[in-house]
């Protein structure tokens, strides 16, 4: 079994290759999906929306359930911990 794979501090996506990281920079804590063109972390609302849409498009989960799942997924990620 390998050591723990690094993952995005915002959404938890496994960071397996440079292209997965913001700006392709492996020293950054966030993935390319959670950051803008300058590598800055997107807002919580934007990240929540992206993850909600991913649940819906991949499995046809209802929008309301997908949002609940996305909220649960992000709740204790370092970027969003203690937000509530």
């Amino acid at each position, binding site marked *: 079994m*390998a050591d*723990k794979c690094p993952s995005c501090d915002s959404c*938890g996506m*496994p960071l397996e290759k440079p292209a997965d990281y913001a700006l392709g920079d492996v020293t950054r804590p966030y993935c390319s999906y959670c950051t803008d063109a300058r590598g800055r972390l997107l807002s919580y609302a934007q990240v929540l929306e992206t993850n909600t849409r991913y649940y*819906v*498009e*991949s*499995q046809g989960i209802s929008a309301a359930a997908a949002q609940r799942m996305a909220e*649960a*997924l992000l709740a204790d990620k370092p970027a969003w911990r203690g937000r509530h």
Partner: protein
Amino acid sequence: MQPATRQEQKAATRNRLVNAAMNLFARHGIAQTTTADVARSIRMSHGTVFLHFARRDDLVIAVIDEFGRRLAVEFRQALERDLGLRAVLQAHLRVLAAIEPFYARLVIEAPQLPPKVRSTLLMLHAAVSHRLFIAFERERKAGRARKIERPLLFNTWIGLVHHYLVNRDVFATGDSVIAEMGGTLVQHFMTLIKA
């Protein structure tokens, strides 16, 4: 051999905990297994568990993440070599077969899992759906598959696999329903999507 560094020892302990948890979850169920059970099974102090996992749910998520890591490796190989949809399905089953008793428990208990754990599992399904669809679209563009929407493509495959896993006691004559039925399921799915 050089002595292990502190970081290597920490990683090794974490891996032992994840492996032990996976085995106990498979045997006794996820909800029924405590962190104390996991620690006891590998003769570790209960407190050590919490040095690595702040909460029990974090340990469950670590086991699911390990499963996801194995899937990512298999899928990457199948997709990068452009081996086709059949190879992606086989890669999926290969990983499931290696952890079949645990995965079957996970599927059975999924609706009762805490939202944090369930959302992780559903995100893993989303990643499988994504990769399945990439391979499927290549088949479709080559004229070998008909048009199917992404959610239904994935749900048809996962529904089929999960049905056999949840009822593995009646479908399998040995220890692994995937070993016995996997080839049939892949062939059936390939027939279903054919153009």
